[in-house]
């Protein structure tokens, strides 16, 4: 049975580790489907983590921290829109600026306000999200198979984990089954046709960016007010880029992006398990090399063993309305 519980804990970690990636990938889908490149997922996730932790610390309620994080991320998305949609600046430059700005600003402010080299104070139980135990999880634990699946894998996660996996069908529905989604995709593929149909291209892109900001805020809050009980410097650790790679690998589609996120999460969970373990024939792999596995996997996935990635047609191009 030890083997089974090992597998269960591995799946359990996979679900947890994939959570911020899922939120970020869904956020990325909205921005990029509307034709706006979003490399700034990384910076926004970090900003959300910082604001959620600080907000929750001062206000004493993690939900208020989350709310502030949403406001902060939507503002950053609007800044990105202001620079790259309204002022037609380079979208990638705008993202790089936001990422570097946020890496610096979060750590600098944390140090200035709390004086702990870029850490925020540890949150107590009232100030952070706690694990949610699903009903009957305890009593069902001893039932074979179902017990493991229900009690050990599905139960006992943070609220964000459940929200992340619920967001996937929701995003799918919005993007592919509603008229808003149709317009969103059209704006990313052929903005001038959408403009001809009387739809405001700029407004659509701003709306997409606003949704993007809300979704990415959940990823950051998950990191600093659920899995960890504080913010620390550069705690997003490249997850924004990983999620973007997952989204591209998933061809800008929620379902396939989810699969890619889970693959990343699984590799990361496995990576943690492999540290310090003697493998047959290879021996112990140095920890630094094991930690590089998710990053190597990102490059491998991007290189795409499943065909070349085809982005939305108008991605990265500012829309210039004819005069």
């Amino acid at each position: 049975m030890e083997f089974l519980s090992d597998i269960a804990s591995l799946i359990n970690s996979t679900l947890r580790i994939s959570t911020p990636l899922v939120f970020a990938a869904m956020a990325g889908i909205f921005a990029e489907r509307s034709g706006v490149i979003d490399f700034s997922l990384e910076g926004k996730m970090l900003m959300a983590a910082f604001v959620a932790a600080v907000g929750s610390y001062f206000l004493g309620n993690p939900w208020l921290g989350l709310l502030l994080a949403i406001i902060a991320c939507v503002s950053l998305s609007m800044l990105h829109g202001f620079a790259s949609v309204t002022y037609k600046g380079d979208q990638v430059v705008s993202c790089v600026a936001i990422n570097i700005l946020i890496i610096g600003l979060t750590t600098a402010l944390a140090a200035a306000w709390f004086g702990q080299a870029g850490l925020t104070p540890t949150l107590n139980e009232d100030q952070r999200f706690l694990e949610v135990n699903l009903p009957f999880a305890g009593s069902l634990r001893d039932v074979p198979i179902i017990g493991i699946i229900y009690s050990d894998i599905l139960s006992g996660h943070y609220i964000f984990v459940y929200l992340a996996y619920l967001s996937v069908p929701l995003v799918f529905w919005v993007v592919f089954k509603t008229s808003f989604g149709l317009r969103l995709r059209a704006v990313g593929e052929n903005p001038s046709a959408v403009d001809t149909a009387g739809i405001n291209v700029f407004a659509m892109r701003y709306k997409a960016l606003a949704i993007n900001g809300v979704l990415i805020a959940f990823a950051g809050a998950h990191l600093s007010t659920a899995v960890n009980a504080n913010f620390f410097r550069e705690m997003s650790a490249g997850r924004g880029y990983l999620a973007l790679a997952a989204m591209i690998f998933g061809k800008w589609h929620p379902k396939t992006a989810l699969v890619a996120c889970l693959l990343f999460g699984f590799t990361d969970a496995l990576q943690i398990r492999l540290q310090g373990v003697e493998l047959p024939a290879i021996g112990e792999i140095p920890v630094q090399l094991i930690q590089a596995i998710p990053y190597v996997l990102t490059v491998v996935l991007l290189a795409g063993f499943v065909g070349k990635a085809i982005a939305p047609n108008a991605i990265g191009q500012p829309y210039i309305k004819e005069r």
Partner: protein
Amino acid sequence: MAPVDKSKVPWWVSNLIVPLVNLTLALLVSGLFIFIAGENPYEAVRLIIYGSFGYIEGFAYTLYYTTNFVFTGLAFAVAFHCRLFNIGGEGQAYIGGLGVFLVAINFSFLPVPIVWLLSIAGAVVFGAAWAFIPAYLQATRGSHVVITTIMFNFIAASLMVFLLVDVIRDTSQMGPHTVALPKEQWFPSFKDFAGLFGIKIRYSPLNISFLLAIAASVFVWFLVWKTRWGYEMRAVGHNTQAAIYAGISPYKNIIIAMCISGGLAGLLGVNEILGVHHKIVAGFPAGYGFTGIAVALMGRNHPIGIFPAAFLFGILYQGGSEVTFDMPNITRYMFVAVQGVIILFSGALENLFRPQIESFFVNRLNIKASA
């Protein structure tokens, strides 16, 4: 506001006035950050100027930082002319440093000037090699270099820590660094030169790599604007389809541009290893690679702009360390944020006031001309 006729705008308005206005805006926002952090922005500016110009060691430090930023700024600029965002300067510099060290330690039997030349070549080759894989994947698979180069930064960091801990560590010491290079291989520093003129300086990281930075700037200018290859590369960056019709291979140019970019970033390793640390220490690129992005965008991707932009960031870094020394609420991360703001205003938002400023000057000149 209607855009003005570009040909009527004098060069100094678009290349001098507009960047200066953007820089001013960026510095104003930065001042706001310092205020939020609970310090006096005016006092911070005073400390920055004193720290970077006020005494000779400080000024030497400013020029030492300038050296690093010239390398990474040029690196970003070269790739950018081909519309490639090489934000992997950090990793390429790290691996470039490995190249410098391996060449210097293994060829120590050769005369010192030859070892220097070989080490510089080692930096370029290692840096270029680290940029080659993202370049190849971009050219053949369309994998966006922003993601792949960032990933290669993480991979380089893991790889180097692995090497420094398990493979090339100086086993007689605790810290993750290599043995020091033989003393005769160390680049002559500003301290040595000042000593010749009877000026006593305690320590200075400034060394003859500064001259290499000047040489690299001239090289980039010549390569990008005066050679056929530079023309082809800019053509691919400007309009890939048109370039293809003109018989220019985007595939070849993407790879060459990224490799040269990586090689230039690798030169940071020359300054840091031969000039300053004389061994590989963990994390020596210390963010200089990222600063190169801001430097290049502020310098409008031209060596003549990059050099003063690098100097400005040198002032900001050296003056900034003076600030962190005197102001407990400011850490060096504040100056990372300042870089972000500068990239925002001189890169993404560069058109914010451009039409207004250009039409203002064009109208003024017209009035003068007709009067």
